[in-house]
């Protein structure tokens, strides 16, 4: 079984400042890693995913994440945030070969301060 820990439930950041949202996972097997964003009253939208290869993954809206196997982390970063980035962000994992079952963290609410 897998588990995901998002260490920060809320992160306030000033507009145009950089941000890092932390994610750690636990698994006894190889995993795929994902970051999803959820805007108010909406479903989930995929920001980026790590399947294999380069550990630095670039996604939509200027976000990127780095897979660190030794630290079992997959932190999400953005160099300069915008008001429109205000949302809930979820880190998720799936077992390689079992892509249908995602295990999510509890989410991090990113609030951008003008």
């Amino acid at each position: 079984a897998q588990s995901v820990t998002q260490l920060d439930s809320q992160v306030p950041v000033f507009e145009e400042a950089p941000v890092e949202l932390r994610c750690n996972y636990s698994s006894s097997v190889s995993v795929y890693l994902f970051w999803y964003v959820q805007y108010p009253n909406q479903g989930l939208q995929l920001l980026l995913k790590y399947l294999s290869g380069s550990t630095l993954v670039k996604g939509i809206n200027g976000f990127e994440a780095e897979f660190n196997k030794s630290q079992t982390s997959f932190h999400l970063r953005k160099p300069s945030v915008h008001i429109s980035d205000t949302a809930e962000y979820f880190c998720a994992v799936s077992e390689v070969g079992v892509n249908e079952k995602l295990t999510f963290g509890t989410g991090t609410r990113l609030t951008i301060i003008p």
Partner: protein
Amino acid sequence: DAGVTQSPTHLIKTRGQQVTLRCSPKSGHDTVCWYQQALGQGPQFIFQYYEEEERQRGNFPDRFSGHQFPNYSSELNVNALLLGDSALYLCASIQRDGNEQFFGPGTRLTVL
């Protein structure tokens, strides 16, 4: 491409009632997964349907059941509703050999 669609958007039921939620997958996808997202929590996997059969199941009681139709659309049924079943129910679709799930907007279920 319409993406994943779900109906209804909102639903209010009372304890003990039964509810059916519906989902149409993204064009070209043959697998549907259902998730429950309680307020302030991350989504939790309920089950997966492929070829009209339940293939995987999360830690949910038998009150939660589903169905998949030949056109790949799916239903989630919840019997004997409890207050704790109040949540956003998300449907996601994926191509069988794919690695990315696409989510619908969800159905907000309130149990009074």
